[in-house]
């Protein structure tokens, strides 16, 4: 198949991911945009590797690394989002950084 097709696919997905990060109100949805961008990079890498028939299979190995790192990153990122939720009571990116709300912890709720 023409090399250009997967490349264009990756460009499109990347742009869609950029839009998602910049325009979504919920922090978790912004992270989904980041995932789309990472996937776009993956498609790009795999396409070039298959086209090039690299001996070291560089592109696909990098893709596997990216997948692993994306998993690590989403884990940490969502932990941070959780922390934000506990401090502010919401994860609205427009309001984050303003007044911290008082979200009762489980002990206080049970008291």
């Amino acid at each position, binding site marked *: 198949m023409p090399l250009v097709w997967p490349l264009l696919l990756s460009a499109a997905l990347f742009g869609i991911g950029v839009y998602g990060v*910049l325009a979504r109100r919920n922090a978790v949805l912004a992270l989904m945009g980041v995932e789309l961008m990472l996937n776009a990079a993956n498609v790009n890498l795999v396409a070039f590797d298959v086209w090039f028939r690299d001996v070291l299979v560089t592109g696909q190995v990098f893709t596997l690394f990216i997948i692993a790192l994306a998993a690590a990153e989403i884990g940490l990122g969502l932990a941070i989002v959780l922390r934000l939720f506990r401090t502010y009571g919401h994860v609205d990116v427009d309001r984050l950084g303003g007044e911290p709300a008082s979200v009762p912890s489980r002990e206080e709720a049970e008291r």
Partner: protein
Amino acid sequence: MIGLVLVVGLPLLAALAGLAFLVVPDRVRAAQVAVGGAAVTWVVTVNVAVPRLGDADPVGGSWGHAWGNLTAPALSFALRADSMSAVLLLLAATVALLVQIYSVAYLAEDPRYPSYAAIVSLFSASMAAVVVADDLFVLLIGWEMMGVCSYLLIGHYWERSDARDGAAKAFLMTRTADIGLLIAIIVLGQAVDSYRISDVLDAVAAGELSSATITVTALLILLAAVGKSAQVPFHTWLPDAMPGPAPISALIHSATMVAAGVYLVARMQPLFAESEAATIVLGLIAVVTMLIAAAFALAQDDLKRVLAWSTVSQLAYMFAALAAGSVVAAIGHLLAHGAFKALLFLAAGAVAHSVGSTAFADMGGLRRPMPWTFWTATLGLAALSGLVPLSGFFTKDAVVGAAYDAAHGEAGPAPSWLGWLIVVAAFVTAALTAAYATRAWRLVFAGERRGTAEAHEAPDLMRWPMVALAVPTVLMGVAVVEPGWLAGSEAEPVHAWVVVLSTVILAVVVGLTWVLGNTGDPATRLGPLRPVLAREFYIDDAYDRIAVRPTFRAVGVVLRSDRDVVDAYVRGASYSAMTASRLLRWAQNHNVQTYVTVAVVGVVVAAVLAGVSAG
């Protein structure tokens, strides 16, 4: 010469010293400086002036010779005193001293007394400068300084809006008229190549000036004199200057400043003698003014306004005498009027001090509680009406006599019809004067006590100046009949028919007014004419529409253009600064999405630029 400098300089020093008491408020010291300065000035003035009375030679001198160049003659500080200056100096210094003494008591509770006293001293210096000036610019400086002092003093009670308005009106009207004086000085300076009054008069006598120059200059000087002395059409400021303290009205608006206009025309009389046109204008203005001012005085409700219109009318008498060509008659009436009108204003001040206002509605029946005021004011009103043998009679008789002579073509440049006109107008005005004087006398001193304030006699310091002024009120007539009291005066014969006619008119009018006064205010008999007279023929309203409102509209345009055009730049600068800051604030709005947006867009733009520039 030294004496002349002292006469001008001593009150000036007193004024400057008085300024010190603005910083360190000390009433007693300020009063001492003011009254002491006036007293010392009076002594010096007597020493300087008395030798100059009569036919004595004038003395003078000059300092400095500055700022002359090829196109303009030089200025110099030149002073000169002849007999006319001498009598005026005596009048001014005496009235100033009496007013300073009177003011100590009149303004006893006024916290602004120190500044008032200093400005009165400054005014005395300016009047002296005008009277002894030999250089036209020295005269102009004194003239303008008098205007400034008048403004400051009329506005002494600046909390009152009528005082503020009256001060501004006086200043603006006289300043507008003073343009005439300035232009006349420049024209004369160019024509004679000197600014010295003595040089100018010599040039006129030698016939060196063209008749056009003489006429134009005379008319311009007349303009300034008309403004300063409140004649038609500049007559409306004097009654509105009455919100000032009564001693100021006595000093400035009866005896000295308004008389400066008469002095100016008298000093420049040779110019008028050569110009029939200027003399006719002068005469007509005088005739109109004396009649309408006396009529206005009849309809007023306020004692000081009656006296103000009376002043305007009597000044017109002096101008009429000048139009008829007789400086002696004019200066004589100026002296007598200075004495009795100052006395009347001081009496009005005493009444105001006693009952708390100057409206007739608050007065009445003050004969018993205020005997001294009553007797001195009666003498003053009688002199005003021209009762034999008080001073007013003799001087008014001199004016009529001069007009009669002019009517027979015997003297001066006035055409005979003007002379007859002045004679008739003088008699009519005398009748009106007697009427309003009687009305005022009756409303203030006779009848029932109206108003609620407790009436008391004036304190000593106010009483003695009034008594002192009563003396010349009575005796001045004898002095001015004496031949040779002024340079160039012959024995003025007292025309018998004038005596008879004026006494008859006086008796008739006084009796009529008294009888009418038995049934209330005589002015009500004027009927529908009264409101028109009380509003002074609505002339002021006309001035308001012609001059004042367009000025305010122009002011509005200027203000609006300053606000909308000039200030728009200022506001625009602040607006753009705030907008820029609002945009820059985004860099720190703690919104992660904003930061990421900026980063991404920046990278994208950089990539595009890199691609475009490389490709």
